């Protein structure tokens, strides 16, 4: 992914333009961004791995990485995009580690227990949840990533485009196709209505 390479650089390279003067202190900015997007980063990683426990660990590691290299944030890109770029690289790295290391069994997801009570509703929810998981896993990688990023509620389409290094229209169409595919896959559940 060309975009990934580009953002890796902007995320890690120290500010080379200024020569003698050190990079401006952006610590506060980074700290605020970490707090602000922490949950979004976790939500994005959940979208990618489908496991909240793993998403939590990955998010913590990614945020720690971002914090440790806060000096390298140069303010040229949006700070949130910068944090997400680090999270994204961390996700790619973790896939690589997984591929070489021993395979872990994914944790069993608890069935979503919130919302309306009653065994029937719970069963319907669990069934729907499993179906969505299957449908998400079937999505092409690019679409799944775009959808996960947008559903994380941390970034706008424009910021995602910056992160992925593709035009915003491309991001939108990836999300659109992903959602339409999900809708098709979930056709058997069309009568299901969200209830609180």
């Amino acid at each position, binding site marked *: 992914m060309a975009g990934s390479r580009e953002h890796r650089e902007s995320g890690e390279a120290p500010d080379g333009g200024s020569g003698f003067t050190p990079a401006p202190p952006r*610590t*506060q900015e980074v*700290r*605020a961004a*970490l*707090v*602000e*997007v*922490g*949950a*979004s980063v*976790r*939500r994005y990683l*959940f979208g990618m791995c489908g496991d*909240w426990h793993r998403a*939590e660990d990955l*998010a*913590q590691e990614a*945020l*720690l990485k971002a*914090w440790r290299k806060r000096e390298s944030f140069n303010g040229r890109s949006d700070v949130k995009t910068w944090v997400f770029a680090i999270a994204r690289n961390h996700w790619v790295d973790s896939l690589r580690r997984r591929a070489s290391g021993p395979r872990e069994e994914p944790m069993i*997801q*608890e069935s*979503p*227990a*919130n*919302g309306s009570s009653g065994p029937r509703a719970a069963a319907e*929810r669990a069934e*729907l*949840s499993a*179906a*969505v*998981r299957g449908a*998400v896993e079937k999505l092409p990688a690019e679409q799944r990533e775009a*959808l996960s990023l*947008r*559903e994380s*509620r*941390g970034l*706008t*389409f424009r910021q995602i485009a910056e992160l992925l290094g593709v035009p915003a*229209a491309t991001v*939108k169409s990836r*999300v*659109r196709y992903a*959602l*339409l595919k*999900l*809708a*098709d896959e*979930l056709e058997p*559940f*069309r009568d*299901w*209505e*969200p209830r*609180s």
Partner: protein
Amino acid sequence: MNCQEVREQLIDLLYGELDDAQQRQVMAHLDGCDACRGELRRLQRARSALAVFRAGEPTTMSVLKGELFGTERTEPAGRARFRVGHWLAAGAGVAAAIILGWAAWMLQGTKMLPTASAEQTGPVEIKRVALSLTILSAPPGSEGQYPQPRPMAAQGAEYQSEQMDYQVTVNGGQALGRGGWQGLALVRDQRLAANLRKGANEVRFKGVPAGILPDTVRLRSLDFADGLTIMEQNYQYDLASAAAVLKKHVDKQITVSVKDLPAVTGELLSYDHRNLVVRPKGEGPRSVSREKVRAIAFEKLPEGLLTTPTLVWQLNNKADRKQQFEVAYMTRGLAWRADYVLKLRPAVRPAGAGAAKPQAAGTQGAEGAKPQAAIPDIMDGADLVGYATVTNLSGVTYENAQLKLMAGDVNLIQDEGTVIHRYKQAQEQLANRLAEAREQFEEKSFFEYHLYTLGRPTTIRDAETKQIELVTGEGIKLKRGYVYDPSVNRTAARVVSEFRNSEENGLGKPMPKGVVRLYAPDPEGAQTYVSQTSIDHTPVNEKVRLPWGFAFDIACTAKTTGSRTAGDEHAETREYELRNHKDYGVTVTVIFRVPRTTYEGECNIPWHVREVGVVEADVPLAPGATAKVTFSYKANNKTGGGLKSPYDK
């Protein structure tokens, strides 16, 4: 707009990224196009399903667990842990609301615009807009217990202010100073929360004083009262004082630098104010005298400790807009009192003083038989300045505060109960009345109190005593008088100055209770401190009577010359002798005290009853003159009774 264009924008609409105009266009098209509406419904259904898939999402998230503050301390932030759960919950709630809204729209065909705010996240920023401080005067009985900055005492306090000169201990949630009046003030802090989101918000409010009374904290919206509800209010005051940090490090690793010895690193087993017991790894425990300790190094600030007390609210904002709100609370550590300086002007010789001298011998032995009306009143000129002395030991600096000082002694428990009782009474009354009666607050007199409002904002720093001018009067006319009351002093008459608190007299503002210091010019004209007294709260147009010391040149004696009881009848005669050694004439008011309610009195000069059991007579005394005043009374013990009225002193 054709279907192709609309379909490109549906995704923006779905995620709330259209501006109002675009949104209207898309909605207009959707109204008339079943196909596009169908696509939107499919997209929406997929998003709703994703929300179900995400349902196991944890509600809180600890970002970096202390790492953010472990390496540097650029801001005095308290907890080494951020909780983003509430923002998260807020976001999820809003998202759910939008999903439901869309479902409703799709089912019923009614329009419902998605709110853009669903995408906003981040801590609520609050900006101070205005600050008002109302400091109460000390309750009766607490005179002389005005809070004073004092050097920090030995160890043992739970927490203390950073300035280390004021110490409070926590006592069942109430911070109580060491004895005496610790001040009481109402703080009204108006803040603007520009990015308050719709739904749940966490607002952290720093800079609250250590002496805050947490149960008096109130928060209300100033511009949309119904739209803001408080779900939870927390006062976090586990401060990172040396004692608290030590306490949290029991069983943890610390490094102690000791004078003349190598540093000790080990587990802290226990501590008291004299020793630390540390067990270095692999060795036995070692006791270290705290006197020898140079420094203790801790690994990091333990979680949950704050560097400043903090108020944390969970607010539910029903309106999707910024909110200006007001936080009102009462706190200790802020007190004020009034101090007056009365400077007598250089003495004007009382009229006729020089001329009166030759006649002095002639009036000898007058015994008051001939009233000497010729003695003029002695008038002194004086300048009065009243200061409000404000002391801030609350631990917080109040910048640009509107300062209001409240005077009055209403409804505080006076004789019984502890200081806490007084605090509670005052606190409840004032918090209730002040928080709810905003308009009246502007008035000068409020309920039974008087408010002194400083016209300009002022900054009251922590650990500062500030004096602000309260009242001034120039050229006040003081009437000098002499009062002889043997029950106060058997041999001398008291000097009393009397003036009216009126506009004609250069005054005319209510004068709060306070200490008056009198300065008088000495013969060389330099102002010399003469005497000190106190005045009570004095309304406008009331007379202020200032008792000073006793007159040097007026000698007085008192004796009972006859006392006779026959059956129920009781008769008594008293005789006062007064000698004026001044070179000018004076009028001395003599006081006879009669321990009866009804009696028959008789005096050799005109007399009148001032109050029950107190008889007064004015005795004019020419220079060098001696006067004898006799007063006798007859009373029936059965009908007159003994006098036990509170008026009788």
